[in-house]
Structure formats: C-alpha cells, structure tokens
C-alpha cells in the first residue's frame, strides 16, 4: 500500500514540487497550505505515514501545527519533518522540541528529499 504523506507549505511551488517528487516515488500525497488547513486534514484522515511541514506560515505556523498534531492520539508518533532554511538553526531545535522527527534544510533537491523521507518514513 502506498505510504501517505501530508505536505504543508504556504508556497504552492514548493508544495507541488515536493508532492511531485514523492508521487514519482510511489507515495501518496495530500497538500495543505498552512498549519490550520493541515489540522483540518488530520481531522479527516485516519492515519499518515509522514508529515512534511514548513515553519513560517500564516494562520498556524509549523511549530504550532506540530504541537497540536502531537496532542492527537492518531498522530502522536507520526514522523514529522520540518522544512527550514540554513539560517534557522534555532527553528530546528524548536521543531524537535515541539515533537518533530527531523528536518530538511532548504534548498534541497529530489535526491536529498527522498533520502530523508526514506530515513524517517520507511
């Protein structure tokens, strides 16, 4: 069964790129454009194999989203990857603190993305 991944980013270009790369590898993806919408997806979906989320987003940011997601029993242990930029070292810690499994540093290419996704979702 295809693994299901939720991709949250307010940039459609990045969201779609990530989705595209993952779909090419046989993953099923769901997109959300901010943390609030992401929580909406969690409410409707039974379980996920991985969540990839950006940090800086309107409405509900990535860190807030992770905290809320970890409160939901179905997503207590779901691997979560945070998209950060090199300049956001503190965000990595903040993300880990909130319950993220790991992070992906922008910019990244398909190879790097897939390597990290495999690492945490397989």
């Amino acid at each position, binding site marked *: 069964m295809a693994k299901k991944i939720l991709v949250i980013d307010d*940039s459609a270009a990045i969201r779609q790129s990530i989705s595209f790369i993952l779909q090419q590898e046989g993953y099923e993806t769901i997109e959300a454009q901010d943390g609030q919408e992401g929580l909406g997806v969690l409410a409707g979906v039974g379980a996920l194999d991985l969540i990839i989320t950006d940090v800086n987003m309107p409405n509900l940011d990535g860190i807030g989203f992770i905290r809320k997601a970890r409160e939901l029993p179905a997503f207590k242990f779901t691997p979560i990857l945070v998209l950060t930029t090199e300049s956001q070292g503190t965000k990595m810690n903040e993300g880990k603190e909130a319950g*993220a499994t790991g992070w992906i540093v922008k*910019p990244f290419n398909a190879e790097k993305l897939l390597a990290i996704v495999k690492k945490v979702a397989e």
Partner: protein
Amino acid sequence: MIDKFKSTFLEEANELLGQLEETLLELETMPTDSELLNKAFRAMHTVKGSSSMFGYDAVSKFTHEVETALDRCRNGEILIDRIFIGLTLRARDHIRGLLDFENPPEELLRQGEAILGEYRAWMANIGGGKAVASGPAPKGEGEGSKARPREGANSEAQGEAEPMTWRIMFRPAPEIFKDGTKVLTLIAELVALGEASVYPHIEALPGLAAMDPELCYCSWDIILTTRAGENALRDIFIFVENRSELQISRIAKQGDEFANAKRLGEIFIERGLVSAATIGSVLEGHKRLGETLVEQKVVSSDEVASALLEQEHLKKIQERKDVAGSIRVASDKLDSLVDLVGELVTLQARLSQTASERQDSALGSISEQFERLISQLRDNTMSIRMLPIGSTFNKFRRVVRDLSLELGKEVELQTEGAETELDKTVIERLSDPLVHIIRNSLDHGIESPDLRREKGKPVPGVIRLSARHSGAYVLIQVSDDGKGLDAEAIRQKGIERGLIVQGQELSDNELFQLIFAPGFSTARVITTVSGRGVGMDVVRREIDGLGGSVHLESAAGAGMTVTLKIPLTLAIIEGLLVKVAGDFYVIPLSSVDGCIEIAKEDLDQLGERRIFSFRNEFVPFVSLRRFFDSVGQGPSISQIVIAQALDSRVGFVVDQVIGDYQTVIKPLGRMFKSVEGISGATILGDGTVALILDVNRLSQVVQHESKVRTAARSGVA
C-alpha cells in the same frame, strides 16, 4: 528543483511581492503593528526559501540579508522608520527585477549590493555598533554569488577510503520514540554501511507491569567495519537529539597490525567500563578476566558478551585480511603478462600443427598436455583482468531513475547476473552503448502510464538488464515490456532513408536490424532524450569495435530485447588465418560468415563487377592481393571469405584459408597507423607477422568503390 513548477514559483513570488508592497505601505502608517511586520517577514522568507529551491541564487542571497534586517525589527532590536520602509520597498523592486533572470547581469547585482550596503549603514546608525557585529556577515567584496559550498560535504569521506572499524555506542533517550524516531531503522541504516556486529542491551527492560511501552529501554554497542567516514556515521543520527547518548570512536584501520585482535581488557578500558588498574590486578591472579570481572560485579555479563563480540569481529576482519589478502599490481605489468601468455598461445598452436604434420605421437602427446596447461594459464591470466559487470549496473539504475522522472514514466530496472565477469576494458567500453540502449527502451519502448493503464499492462514498465556467460562470450540483454517495434513504420522509414527499396521482401526480424543503420530513427517526435537518431548505429559501431555483435527481437505490443554478444576479452581474439601472396592475415572469426572456393577463370570472368551471389544476396568483394598491392598471380583456385561488416556483407578473395587461430592483438606501430583496412597485428608461432583485418573499414572502402563504379556505368549508359 523541478522546472515544471518554475512558472508557479514565479507567479507566486510576484504575488508575494505585491502583497509585500501593500504590507510595507500599511506598515509605514502603523510601524508598531507586529502582525503587519510578521506578514512582511513571512513574505520575504517564503520568497527566499523557494527562490533557493528553484535555482534563483541571487534572489535568495539578496533576500536573506533583507530578511535578517526584518527579523531584527521583528525581535524589537531595531525600530522601523521611513528610511527602512523606503529601503525595503526598493529591495522589493530589486527582487522583482532579479526574478526576470536566471543569471542576472553584473550591473543588476551591483545595484543589489548597493541596497544591501545602505541596509548595513542604516542598521549601524540605528542599532549601534553591536548591531553591525551581529548583522548579516558582510561577504568579502566582489565575492558575488559564488557556488554554494554545501552539499556533498560528507560524500568526500566515502570515496575509495580504506575500511576502518568503528565502535558505536548508542544509548537512546527513554523518550526517543515520542517524536516518531524509529530506532531499529537507525540501527539498520548504520549496519547497511558495512560489516557489523551488533549487540543490543536489553537488561534495563523492566517487567511487564512496570514498563512504559512508549519508552525505550534498549541500547546498542555496534562494531562496524566500513569505508564510510565518521561524518556518514554521524549523519545517520542527525535527528537524534542530545538526550540520547552517542559515542563513535575508531578502533582500527584495516591495515592496523592488531596482532590477534584486541585483548578483552583493552576493550573494557577503551569502553570506559573498567580501569586499567583493576584489569591489572585481575590479570595478576591468572584468572579468566571476563568471569572474574563479572564475579566481582565490576561489569555485567552483558557487557562481557558485548566486548567478546567486538573481539570476535576484529579477529574476523583480521583473518579475512590475512586470507583474502590482495596485492596491487601496476596494470602495465598485467598487460605484459597477457602479452606473454598470448605468445604462448600462438606458439602452442604452432607446436600442435608441427606435431600433427610430423605424425609424431610422442610430440603430439606433449603438445596436448601443453595445450591444456596453456589454456588454464590463459584463463587464469584473463581472470585477473576480469571485473563483475555489476559495478556499472548502478549507473544504469541512475539513468533509469532520472530519465523516467524526466519523461514522466514509471519504470523499474531489474538486473540479473551482476556478478558476471568481463574484461575491465570491455566493461568500460560497454557502458555508453548500454546507456544508449536503455535510454532508447525508456524513451521509445515503455509507454506512458496512461497508455499502459489503457492497455491493461501494469503501470510501472520494466526494463531488464541481464548478463550471462556463453562460451567465450558474454551475452548482455536489455529487454523491456513496452510497445515493441513497429515493423511497418521501420519499413517506411527504411525506404525513406534509402536503406531498402520499395517492394523488397524482408522479414520483420530483418527489418528490425535496420534501426542500427546510420541515421535511422523511428521516433516521430524527437525528444531531448534519445537524441536525433544518432542512436543505435553508434551502439552497433561500438559493439563491433569490441568484436561483438548486436541482435534485436521484438514483439508488437509486448516489448523488445536487444542482445549484445561480447567477447570476454579484447586481448585475445579468435581469428581465421588466411594467406595472400605469402603474407598472413587474420580475419576476426566473429564476423566470418563462411568461405567459398572460386576458380581463377570464374574470378576473372566476374571481372570489374566484383560482386557475387551468396545466400541469395549480392555481396561485393575485394581481392586482398589487389588491395594490398601484392605482386604475382593468384592460384588456380582462390577462396572468398565472406564477412559480416557493420551493415552488409563483404567478401575477401584470398589465396588460401589456413584455419582458426587464437591470436593476441598487438597494437600497430606509428608506421602502420595510416594503413587502411588493418586494425592490428599479431605474431605467429614461427615469428612471422600477420595483419589483422579491419572488416568494417574494408567494407566501407569496397562499398564506396562499388557505388562509384555503378555511378560511372550509369553515366556511360
């Protein structure tokens, strides 16, 4: 990143810059509104992140500094004023300008630097000296947007480094599961890097009633022998936070002289479990160290078991090194060994010939034994140059992966026979043709996912790459389950290209071989992938150059199979030895189709036309006597050797066919480089030199002459 989303990125960036402008203007009237400031920061941040993803490095670099300034305002370090708003609006305009170029002109980059300079000056004025120091690191002047130094920083450590042995002690934090980390996956990732002995500690596990099933009670000692560097090992634990304990230390290099591996005591000391003094006092008692330490409760039996595992691992590595030790030899020494063996092979052929001529049974028996030994010696020598072909398979996996992504197809590459060995040089020269064949299958063979679904085929296409031995050859097959070749389309194209004539009766199989003809391509749409029809003919030429042959089979709708038959080695070839006017020539046996006798009168009768019929085909021929300007008349009965050249047959008229001959190819000296039709030379048992014919080149010459003659005749008529 992915080009197809570039336009989305540009639209989005422009939209964000539009919003940013609005936000900045509002901010100018309400400079303390933190939500507005956040909004501006977010817009800048998103532009930065996505521009770096899509390769707009100048944008991301510039935006980074502006973002830093905004961040400092957001943190309340700096108060927003009109100058700042003005600057940021200009920065916004500049970004919009930069987005028009993937490689912005110098002039524009200088303007950007100027804006950033103003930012720095402004921050220095407003925020005081401290602000400057902690501000965005001012890059060295004129450094511009140099390539990113990141990426692959760890990969250098891998390469062809000597294997080293590491001790990894991993004590996960009890709450490690809580963020979704899968510990067993981490261990498996580590183990996959090399040869590992893994010892899990489970003694900390409490009883069923007392345990919290969501906490981790296990820890690991792992001894790993790998070529991967320390960074690669640490990278595996990159997401493991500080509460977990991780110690990685190098305990041995492959080449280290750890006589009979390490002593148990040393291992305990190195692991920090026992002090050297304790070890010393136990050893003085002449008791078994492990048992004694457990009795004295210095270490647990579990620790002993783990240390013993390390000892065993080191011993195993050491033994392997002793047993399967290898030595490096300069490749020219190997070449000269191959040469010598080749000469022995040749000499042996001579010996066996002499023995049979003399009908000397004693000599004949020696010759036979000699032949067996030499054939073993030859096989052994050749095997030294042999490498498994699997080493190149990975490259093909990559080709398939990248290309299917590019073409939007789903393709799986299956491989078989990776362990099949081939001469090193042959493997190197096979790589390009194979890439080409695989690309061709992927591009023209495998259908799009939609089409496959429609046809009821499994959506992922399959390309199978297999290699196996078959006598003195290796058969390499690339097959796909795509749509196969369209015989009719090939026929049409063949006629268009003048490769066949209208109405010519050809079997499908014969038609398929046409795709190897120069300049042939059936792709209706020329893609960037398979090039412009400079495909399969190049493959054919390369394979011919290796003394091999290409064969293609196809079933409409079910896919096609390309088979390459490659000789195991380049250094020794099987040839047909022939004689012309006292000189010897070798024709590679792989291209010989047959021999026919021809009487001198018949030959003379054919006269200028120099074409004869062979298996219902008109074959042009050339007299080697004439071609190499040999003196004298041919014998009353000559032989024509028919050989298969690139795309047609060609006959060579020789005086005498002597027989099969194993020959060692010697490169020709500079003097002979310019001699047309000769690819190399070999020395016969009695010391005479035989020249090796370049069948393809000779065929071209003959074809050309034949065309010229035909043209001349039609001109006369």
